[in-house]
C-alpha cells in the first residue's frame, strides 16, 4: 500500500499534504506461498490548494490581527475544514452569534479563491463552535416547532446566516406537522416555522408545499 502511494506521489511530483488518497485494494504479500501476492491499488487525487497553503493563509491573517493560534487543516467529505484554536481568544474570534467567525469565513474564502482554484467548500471553525451551535439550533427548532404545533401559529426566528438556516430547515423537515420557509433579504433573511396543514389541502394539489416540508430556497 505504502509502496503504491509513494509511486503515485513520485509520479505527480507531490508530497503527502498535497493529495487526497483512497485505498481501493490493500494488496497482500501472498498466502502461505500458495497464492501470488496481490498488488495494492490507491486512488490519488491532487488537491488544487494544499493544506499548507490554507494553513499559512489563515495563520498570516490571524497574525495580522495580533492573534496567535494553532490552525489545523483537514479534508472531510470533499470539503476543507480549518479549525482554529487559541489561548483564551476563541470568544473574540467567534463574536456575537458567530458574526466574527462568519466574517473570518468570508474573508478567508475570498482570499483563497483568488489565490487558489477552489475545490469543495472551505469551512472554518473556532474550537468546537459550529458543533455547539448546531446542537443549540436543533434544540431551539424542536422547542419552537412544538409551540407552533400547540398554538397553530407561525413563529419567525431571528435572522440567521445561510448555514444556520440550513440546520433549522433540516431539523424542522424531520418533524411532523410543521414546515419551514425563509423570509427577508440579505442579512435579514430568517426562518419561519409554520404549522403544516397538508391534510386540509388534500384535494388541492396546487397549494401543497414540497414533500420535504420546505418551500422555496434555503
Amino acid at each position: 500500500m505504502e509502496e503504491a502511494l509513494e509511486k503515485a506521489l513520485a509520479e505527480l511530483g507531490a508530497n503527502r499534504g498535497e493529495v487526497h488518497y483512497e485505498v481501493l485494494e490493500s494488496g497482500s504479500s501472498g498466502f502461505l506461498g500458495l497464492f501470488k501476492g496481490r498488488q495494492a491499488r490507491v486512488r490519488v487525487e491532487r488537491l488544487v490548494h494544499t493544506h499548507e497553503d490554507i494553513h499559512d493563509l489563515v495563520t498570516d491573517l490571524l497574525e495580522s490581527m495580533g492573534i496567535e493560534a494553532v490552525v489545523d487543516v483537514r479534508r472531510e467529505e470533499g470539503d476543507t475544514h480549518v479549525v482554529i484554536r487559541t489561548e483564551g481568544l476563541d470568544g473574540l474570534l467567534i463574536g456575537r452569534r458567530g458574526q466574527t467567525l462568519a466574517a473570518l469565513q468570508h474573508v478567508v474564502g475570498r482570499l483563497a479563491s483568488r489565490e487558489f482554484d477552489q475545490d469543495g467548500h472551505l469551512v472554518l471553525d473556532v474550537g468546537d463552535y459550529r458543533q455547539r451551535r448546531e446542537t443549540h439550533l436543533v434544540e431551539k427548532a424542536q422547542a419552537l416547532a412544538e409551540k407552533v404545533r400547540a398554538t397553530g401559529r407561525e413563529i419567525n426566528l431571528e435572522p440567521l446566516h445561510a448555514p444556520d438556516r440550513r440546520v433549522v430547515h433540516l431539523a424542522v423537515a424531520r418533524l411532523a406537522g410543521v414546515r419551514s420557509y425563509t423570509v427577508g433579504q440579505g442579512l435579514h433573511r430568517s426562518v419561519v416555522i409554520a404549522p403544516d396543514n397538508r391534510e386540509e389541502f388534500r384535494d388541492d394539489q396546487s397549494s401543497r408545499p414540497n414533500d420535504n416540508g420546505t418551500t422555496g430556497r434555503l
Partner: protein
Amino acid sequence: MRELIEFVARSLVDDPASVRVHEQKTETTIVYQLHVARDDVGKVIGKHGRTAHALRLLLSASAQRRGCKAVLEIKE
C-alpha cells in the same frame, strides 16, 4: 490592525502597489482610511458590501484585542 487591512486589501486587489492605509488617532479611536485604485474599490467592498462589513468586524476584533476602538473608511 494596519497589517490586517493591508494584508486583506493587497490580497484582494489587482493593483496591490496602490494600496495605502492612513491612520488618524483620536483619544479613544483610530480611524483607518484605506485607499485603493479606482477599479479595485468594488473588490474591497464586495457584493452587497459583504467584504467591507467582514473586514470591519475583523478590525473590531483586532482592536478589542488591543483594548481600543478602530474604524475603517474605504476611499478611491
